[in-house]
């Protein structure tokens, strides 16, 4: 039967694909979006894998905080491969006259750096750039430095000029164009300055307690096995406290960010497919309605229902293959087109190529969406009653198909949702998004049904235009529900993205700065604490000075169980993924609220107690009386949890998840950190004054950091908006398809109305009212559902404050209404020009 079905389907395809343009467009668009996102992500990941050695700096990297490797560790590493030592810290760079300062990311490298990849330097005027060793060498009493171009702009300096970092004067010998192991990337606080390790020593910035990280990169001999090496290392130095990374996780943060972005963008892409699915279903239903007579004839000649179904399914799938192929070609080409649009901050370049896996996934999505949206009309069409051939007209089947088709639709829908969830790296997020999309579609359907009901029960308005418009919206077979749902869903996603972005931006640009400090000062030496306070108090306009001791530590065990083996909820993982700042205090810190237990007496001097973040305690399953072990500078310290605090992180104050009782850490090497507020105009003066007096203290401008963060959010929102716009484009295709499908009927309506004496204006008004109502309904529903989605994401997922932003919503509503009016009207304009006579004769 399959061959026969296919043979008949091929004959049916001779009729051309005119009715299938929207079908092809919707499918190609949806598949293209998903394939593009997947291909681009695969290309960037391949680039990441290709550059992994360079990004990691070696085959294996060990990170230590606050301390260098001791002689035994050093010897162990050196005996097993070539090693390169790199140190990184934040510091302040000043012009020699002290007029301009900038926070920098200072990095010292040894002669072996880089073990893999190459540093690219440049000098102005097209001269030959020096080698890295030459550039960093000591010449005429000054160490050299290579710096990111941003620093030169900021300080107004050029190559050959000198800057002061700590106690050292460094000569800029070249611009740093490419650094193979630069993965700080998206959230750096300042431009990079690279110096030799001896130059770092000369700055005098490294003292006990300085926030500094040391990386030891190891290049294993040919044939060396990094897993074996790591296992040996762990066995030899179980308490070293280093973080070990190998090629598999060269850039874990970037990888995570990439995965998240891919999930978001794929989900929005799926919305485009979902929206397009309505168009796909409408196109097939409208095509099959035109085929009713043929189907009835085939049945009269002895075709079974199964054969009819198989025939038109084969035809649909053949066309779908075309649409999917088109989408895949576009998707496969996307990385080549988009590579130049990738953010410049991204430390890896995409590895351009054709990636079969994401294309295959997109194709499967396409097939499933086709089935989910066409099985219904296909099943209904197979039920056409051939007896109609004996009457004037065969009625297309508009109702429900038999139950087994409804079940098949449900299965295809479930497979689609299942694939969306299973193929995402963040399945929880994907599951919620899928549920959200299904709920939104259902809401739109319900609302559409309500609108149709209202139009039907609106009585008989006197105004004939309005009466015709209402009748058009609710006549049997009207595409009102489909158009509302598809146009609305695309719009709702746009509204949601605009609202989430708007809220996050206002949080960052307005709400946070309202009570955030202007500066964080780090690396204040204990001996500098009192003079530092005095200096800031003496500066006019400086308020809200706060200062606390700060140490770095790593949570190593929960109730004695090493964290690697402890059960920690995903939302609390950030706290054990890297070093945390910790402090000690006699009294409850500002910005915290005690929610369990009690604070220790100010003069407490007993066994170590710890005050812990309540949310993290929940995620780690800890309660009052449990113990928390932290590794501070290689020393394990176990403290009993005395109380839990709720911390307002959005205050951007001196918040610590871990606060220890006084006496516990007093003797440990430490620095102080401080915050202060000052008027926006005097920020530069404050930074300058602190930097001149305390060259080792770094001032981090909160404004700059937030601007940096805002830039990242902006870029992500732009990418998501672009994809959501494609979902809206799919919705517009659906509308265009519905307009095209109804064209013949509209022409006939117009002709009959004209015969009855209606003027062009009367008819125009009726159409404008009809499309205006449709567009307005879609827009209002989309505004409501999009707002609800944004509210859920912001308050339930991100936990930030929510404010309604009418501007974004109003813009979307206006856009939708105008679009619908324009498209609907443009589509029916031709109907108005139709000459009555030929139509009346034909009918």
């Amino acid at each position, binding site marked *: 039967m399959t061959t*026969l079905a296919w*043979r008949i389907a091929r*004959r*049916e*395809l*001779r*009729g051309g694909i005119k009715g299938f343009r929207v079908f092809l467009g919707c499918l190609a668009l949806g598949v293209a979006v998903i394939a593009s996102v997947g291909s681009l992500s695969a290309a960037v990941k391949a680039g990441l894998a290709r550059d992994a050695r360079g990004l990691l700096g070696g085959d294996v990297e060990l990170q230590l905080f606050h301390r260098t490797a001791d002689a035994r560790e050093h010897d162990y590493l050196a005996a097993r491969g070539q090693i390169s030592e790199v140190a990184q810290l934040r510091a302040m760079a000043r012009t020699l006259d002290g007029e301009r300062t900038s926070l920098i990311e200072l990095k010292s490298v040894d002669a072996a750096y880089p073990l893999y990849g190459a540093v690219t330097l440049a000098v102005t005027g097209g001269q030959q750039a020096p080698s890295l060793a030459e550039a960093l060498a000591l010449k005429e009493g000054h160490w050299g430095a290579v710096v990111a171009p941003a620093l030169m702009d900021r300080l107004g300096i050029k190559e050959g000029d000198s800057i002061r970092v700590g106690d050292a004067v460094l000569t800029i010998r070249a611009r740093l164009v490419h650094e193979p192991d630069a993965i700080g990337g998206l959230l750096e606080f300042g431009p990079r300055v690279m110096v030799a390790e001896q130059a770092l020593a000369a700055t005098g910035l490294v003292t006990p307690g300085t926030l500094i990280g040391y990386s030891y990169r190891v290049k294993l001999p040919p044939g060396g096995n990094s897993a074996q090496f790591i296992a040996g290392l762990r066995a030899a130095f179980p308490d070293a406290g280093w973080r070990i990374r190998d090629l598999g996780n060269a850039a874990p943060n970037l990888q995570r960010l990439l995965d998240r972005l891919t999930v978001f963008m794929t989900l929005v892409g799926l919305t485009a497919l979902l929206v397009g699915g309505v168009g796909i279903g409408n196109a097939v239903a409208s095509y099959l309605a035109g085929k009713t*007579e*043929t189907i*009835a*004839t*085939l*049945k*009269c*000649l*002895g*075709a*079974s*229902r*199964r*054969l009819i179904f198989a025939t038109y399914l084969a035809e649909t799938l053949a066309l779908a293959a075309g649409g999917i192929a088109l989408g895949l070609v576009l998707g496969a080409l996307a990385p080549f087109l988009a590579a130049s649009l990738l953010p410049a901050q991204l430390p890896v370049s995409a590895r351009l190529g054709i990636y079969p896996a994401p294309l295959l996934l997109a194709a499967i999505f396409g097939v499933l969406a086709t089935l989910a949206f066409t099985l219904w009309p296909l099943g209904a069409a197979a039920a056409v*009653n*051939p*007896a109609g*051939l*004996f*009457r004037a007209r065969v009625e297309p089947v508009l109702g429900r198909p038999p139950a087994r088709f409804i079940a098949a639709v449900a299965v295809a829908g479930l497979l689609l949702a299942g694939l969306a969830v299973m193929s995402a790296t963040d399945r929880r997020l994907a599951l919620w998004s899928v549920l959200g999309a299904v709920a939104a579609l259902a809401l739109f359907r319900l609302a559409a049904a309500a609108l149709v009901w209202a139009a039907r029960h609106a009585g008989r308005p006197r105004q004939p235009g309005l009466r015709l418009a209402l009748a058009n919206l609710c006549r049997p077979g009207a595409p009102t529900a489909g158009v509302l749902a598809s146009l609305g869903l695309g719009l709702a996603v746009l509204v949601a993205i605009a609202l989430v972005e708007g809220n996050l931006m206002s949080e960052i640009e307005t709400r946070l700065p309202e009570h955030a400090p202007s500066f964080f000062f780090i690396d204040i030496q204990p001996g500098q604490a009192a003079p530092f306070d005095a200096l800031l108090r003496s500066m006019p306009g400086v308020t809200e000075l706060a200062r606390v001791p700060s140490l770095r530590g790593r949570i190593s065990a929960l109730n004695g169980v090493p964290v690697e083996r402890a059960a920690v909820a995903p939302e609390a993982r950030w706290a054990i993924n890297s070093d945390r700042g910790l402090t000690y205090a006699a009294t409850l810190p500002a910005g915290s609220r005690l929610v369990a237990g009690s604070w220790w007496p100010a003069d407490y001097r007993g066994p170590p107690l710890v005050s812990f973040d309540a949310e993290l305690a929940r995620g780690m399953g800890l309660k009052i009386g449990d113990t928390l072990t932290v590794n501070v500078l290689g020393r394990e310290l176990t403290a009993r949890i005395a109380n839990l605090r709720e911390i307002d992180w959005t205050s951007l104050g001196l918040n610590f998840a871990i606060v220890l009782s006084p006496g516990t850490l007093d003797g440990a090497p430490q620095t102080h950190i401080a915050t202060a507020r000052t008027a926006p105009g005097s920020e530069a003066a404050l930074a300058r004054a602190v930097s001149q007096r305390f060259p080792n203290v770094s001032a981090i401008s909160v404004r700059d950091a937030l601007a940096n963060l805002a830039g990242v959010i902006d870029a992500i929102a732009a990418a998501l908006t672009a994809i959501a716009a494609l979902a809206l484009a799919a919705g517009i295709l659906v509308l265009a398809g519905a307009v095209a499908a109804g064209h013949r009927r509209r022409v006939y309506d117009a002709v009959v109305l004209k015969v009855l004496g209606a003027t062009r204006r009367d008819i125009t008004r009726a159409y404008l009212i009809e499309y205006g109502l449709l567009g307005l309904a879609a827009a209002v529903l989309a505004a409501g559902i999009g707002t609800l989605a944004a509210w859920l994401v912001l308050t339930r997922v991100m936990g930030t404050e929510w404010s309604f932003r009418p501007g974004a919503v109003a813009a979307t509503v206006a856009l939708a209404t105008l679009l619908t009016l324009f498209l609907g009207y443009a589509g029916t304009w031709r109907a108005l020009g139709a000459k009555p006579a030929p139509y009346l004769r034909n009918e």
Partner: protein
Amino acid sequence: MPLPSDSPIVLVEDLHLTLASAAGAVNVLRGISLRIEAGESVGLVGPSGSGKSTLMMVLGGLERPSAGRVQIAGLDLGRLDEDALARLRRDAIGIVFQSFHLVPTMTALENVAMPLEFAGRADAFARARAGLEEVGLGQRLLHYPAQLSGGEQQRVAIARAFIAAPKLLLADEPTGNLDGATGQLVIDLLFRLRAERGTTLLLITHDHALASRCGRIVALADGRIAEDSAAAGLARLGRG
């Protein structure tokens, strides 16, 4: 499907059909009993709304009766499901419509071959070619319906109706959409083929002259058989 051969081709007993409509239930057929033997030709006449087309739909297995029994070639239609009815039409019933109902995307040859294709016959196209040559369209095999005149389209439809050598041919006003001369040619063709093959014919028509070419005339009125030239001994009515 094997068809019993010794029974009448059409056997209808106390057939009732009630259709729901906006104005309430309408009794379209009200107690029809009819027996047509193999090889008979029957003209079905009656005013519009008398139930002619509905009776034909029931005989073609396209409409289920509300009550009564219908046997075609010895098979009780009430016992057949939708697909079995489709197979019965494929193998035993040919239908010719007033509006031809050719499939517009298929050539004349494909249109004619279709019932045999449904039956999985390997010689479908060879026989369709022969069938079209028999109706004088040997030069038109690869033309699409839109490229054929009305008379040619109806000849294709007749070739299609006869292709599977049906026992029963149902024709619903086959000349209704054709001009007089063309209609005459088509009717001559229909009667010639039926006579050559001994096919039982049930022909709906408004045209008494046409009906009189049939061996027997059944007149319907208001859902009942008003006159049957065989039953009433009005054979002369049939001879015209």
